[in-house]
């Protein structure tokens, strides 16, 4: 007897549990199974900095939110339709985000007096009526999992650990997700642990069957595939996309990829990913500190490799002097800053955009470097290649900004055709007489990339001011002034694409201008505003130093420019100082991405002078 199926256009699910409950894995698997159905999707993991905070406490709650739809989605969504809470802590930590009427599935076995007391519930919310405005499903997740596995030679603790697969199975039934990919995934993951594999498969199927048979779940839901351009797709997160972009750039340039890195949240996954790909000739060097990480990358660049370092804000602070040397040496260097909440240690696992001024100006002297920013997880691939184009063409350090949101979030990515990827022509300096290491290309102002091993061009460079052309030590006032201006002119002259403005009516008076990971929330808000009949334009900055050449004209065209930033107005400061145009900031530093609703509200305030 089959249950009724209801078609819905989009769903937002949040899986929440203890750090040890496997919520990230559960979310990842649901994401993969959803992506393969052709829904558009966006994800937002949210986890504590502590590896294992005490079990069952509020600081230990980890969650994974995903938004999937039969249409294009830009964010992981503001308000979940479904909350899966594996214990009272997960319920308590998340309930404020859950709109009334939403579905809440809890593991009722975990709602013991002890666990309730631990998080400050005086009465059991499953019984005291406080959840009466939600569709609440108390499910005996733990005990049903354990009893389904009673035949296996597992301890109770081991059996309990499979309960996340029960939850995944149940949700997969509710939303008609295919099961074969997750089963294949489990078989590969636990290939050498047959009991654990069996336990996970049984729990997964039991969860599915529970949905099918339990009277508690009367309805299942279907979300039709989204209309997406034809092609081959995969799901991709920002850090993996950065790693792939760097490998692609290495292949397209013929340069050996050298990553010097020191582990730091939320950038470490780039190091992990690149360390797997030795067959591409990728060298990953886990250095003794952030300074050695960038130093080794600069040394590799000096030798003709593609030198890259990956870090977050605190790491940039440590690397600054070495980046100044790279500015002086005029060598290609890629510095990836996956921003997190600051200052100091700040919020290591949360997102923020407050390193912009640090990467622009955080060095001694006049020390210009290129700065670009990725806007979505998959855009990280494109921008990694752009960083390499700029660094190698102009022989300069390039900062590529990402952040915790797009690093850990994911979205479907139409895999590009390798044949269409740009190729980079490097052109190392050749053997010659009377070689001048600081003689510049008249168009790009780049100096030669003159690598050791090339006879006849032996030369000495360093951090002391250099004489124009010869590169010899020079302290003369006029030469210093000239070199400072020349280094600045080189960065100012970097060719970057014009900023594109999306203004369908052509007569909007207000422009939403963002940068970095705010793209999704802004685009989502703009869509909603237009659906409500508002006229609003959107543009997104991916090139910050230098700005696109048309930016001044774009800003001048609009009466009001609103710039949402997860900082206190850093891009706004740059825009005001360069273009003398006032900017209306919308600034929040909560460690979380903007919601669509708050940006809509902010825009409505400007549009209607509230």
């Amino acid at each position, binding site marked *: 007897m089959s249950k009724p199926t209801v078609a819905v256009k989009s769903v937002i699910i949040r899986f929440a549990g203890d750090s040890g409950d496997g919520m990230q894995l559960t979310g990842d698997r649901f994401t993969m199974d959803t992506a393969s159905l052709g829904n558009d999707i966006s994800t937002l993991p949210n986890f504590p900095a502590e590896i294992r905070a005490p079990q069952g406490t509020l600081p230990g709650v980890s969650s994974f939110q995903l938004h999937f739809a039969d249409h294009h989605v830009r964010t992981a969504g503001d308000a979940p339709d479904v909350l899966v809470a594996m214990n009272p802590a997960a319920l308590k930590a998340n309930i404020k985000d859950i709109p009334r009427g939403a579905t809440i599935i809890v593991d009722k076995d975990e709602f013991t007096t002890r666990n309730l007391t631990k998080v400050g519930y005086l009465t059991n919310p499953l019984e005291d009526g406080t959840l009466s405005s939600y569709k609440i499903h108390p499910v005996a997740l733990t005990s049903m999992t354990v009893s389904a596995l009673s035949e296996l030679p597992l301890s109770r603790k081991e059996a309990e650990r499979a309960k996340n697969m029960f939850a995944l199975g149940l949700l997969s039934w509710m939303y008609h997700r295919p099961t074969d990919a997750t089963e294949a995934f489990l078989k590969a993951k636990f290939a050498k642990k047959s009991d654990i594999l069996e336990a996970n498969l049984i729990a997964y199927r039991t969860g599915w069957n529970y949905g099918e048979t339990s009277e508690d779940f009367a309805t299942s839901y279907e979300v039709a595939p989204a209309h997406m351009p034809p092609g081959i797709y995969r799901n991709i997160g920002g850090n993996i996309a950065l790693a792939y972009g760097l490998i692609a750039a290495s292949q397209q340039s013929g340069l050996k990829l050298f990553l010097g890195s020191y582990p730091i949240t939320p950038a470490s996954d780039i190091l992990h990913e690149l360390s797997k790909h030795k067959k591409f000739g990728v060298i990953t*060097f886990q250095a003794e500190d952030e300074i050695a990480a960038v130093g080794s990358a600069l040394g590799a660049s000096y030798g003709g490799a593609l030198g890259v370092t990956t870090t977050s804000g605190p790491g940039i602070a440590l690397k600054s002097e070495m980046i100044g040397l790279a500015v002086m040496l005029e060598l290609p260097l890629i510095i990836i800053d996956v921003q997190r909440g600051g200052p100091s240690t700040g919020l290591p696992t949360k997102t923020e955009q407050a390193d912009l001024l640090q990467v622009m100006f955080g060095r001694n002297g006049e020390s210009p470097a290129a700065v670009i920013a990725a806007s979505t997880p998959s855009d990280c691939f494109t921008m990694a290649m752009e960083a390499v184009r700029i660094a190698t063409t102009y022989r300069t350090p390039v900062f590529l900004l990402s952040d915790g949101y797009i690093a850990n979030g994911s979205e479907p990515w139409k895999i590009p055709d390798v044949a269409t990827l740009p190729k980079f022509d490097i052109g190392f300096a050749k053997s010659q007489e009377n070689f001048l290491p600081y003689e510049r290309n008249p168009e790009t102002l780049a100096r030669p990339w003159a690598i050791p091993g090339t006879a006849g061009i032996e030369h000495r460079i360093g951090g002391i001011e250099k004489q124009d052309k010869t590169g010899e030590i020079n302290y003369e006032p006029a030469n210093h002034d000239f070199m400072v201006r020349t280094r600045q002119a080189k960065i100012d002259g970097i060719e970057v694409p014009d900023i594109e403005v999306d203004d369908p009516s052509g007569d909007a008076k207000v422009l939403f201008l963002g940068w970095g990971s705010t793209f999704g929330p802004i685009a989502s808000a703009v869509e909603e505003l237009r659906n409500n009949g508002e006229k609003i334009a959107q543009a997104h900055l991916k090139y910050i130093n230098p700005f696109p050449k048309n930016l001044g004209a774009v800003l001048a065209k609009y009466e009001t420019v609103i710039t949402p930033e997860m900082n206190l107005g850093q891009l706004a400061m740059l825009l005001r100082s360069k273009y003398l145009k006032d900017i209306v900031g919308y600034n929040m530093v909560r460690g979380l991405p903007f919601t669509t609703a708050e940006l809509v509200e902010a825009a409505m305030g400007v549009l209607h002078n509230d």
Partner: protein
Amino acid sequence: MTDVALTKKDFTSDQEVRWCPGCGDYSVLSTMQAFLPELGIPRENIVFISGIGCSSRFPYYLNTFGMHSIHGRAPAIASGLAISRPDLTVFVITGDGDALSIGGNHLIHALRRNVELKILLFNNRIYGLTKGQYSPASEQGKITKSTPYGSLDTPFNPVSLAIGAEATFVARTIDSDRKHLTETLRQAAAHKGSALIEIYQNCPIFNDGAFDQVKDNETKEGSLLQMVHGQPIKSSTFGVIRDGASFKLVELNAVDEPQLVIHDAHDPDPSYAFALSRLSGSDLEHTPIGTFRDVIRPGYSSMVNDQLASVIAAQGAGDLEKLLHSGDTWVVD
């Protein structure tokens, strides 16, 4: 390889040398310029990387590739270069402030990894370029501009530090002893992994005479404990004998020659070389000189590149198309 043998002149750059008159750096530079042709390595395949300090101007005066980098970081930069370019011969030029103070971390890590770097640590026991503050190698109680009542810090013994980091080659030599310096450079160049050479170097401006005990004709023979592999360790007046797990000094006329320790630079146990390094104090009255330790351990860049080669041999070279399509994919028609 170049066909015509190179000479000292080939390794001398056109830059005017700007150290103070009488600086010990001159003799080290001249010895290096004279030694390099012996290596038979083309100039373009030799790189000198330095940090900050008087000695760190060294690369400017050699007609090879060179980088005068930032304070303390030369081993880090040189590591990236050596790992990605195993075809090059990379020297690091540093001083006691540069290597032991601001750059201490990079020094010990380069040594423990055994990156193929030849590190020349010019030890003048003072900060010269910043005009005369005490350094981490200065003797305790030293009166300097920043310690008018005497320094309180216990100094580093650079050789002990390097051996503690399990460096595979550690030696000590003296700026003015061209013959000994050349021989030490020769041994370091022949060594496959990291080599650290501490060079006692006189600063005539801020710490003149710091090493007179081991340089003056009257005292040097009696102070320098000569370490030559396979030979007894002794000065003209003292010898080294075993004392449990350690060593002690005895007057030569109070001991039979066969009791003296025969130097074994190849002893794999670093505690042997470490114990030797502890024989000297800040007063330099008994100073071991020569190669403390010269043992074989795989070099870091050769291991890195062997690992790359073995992965490629096992899996084939990477295919970008396959990488981008790895994992779960789906088709939208």
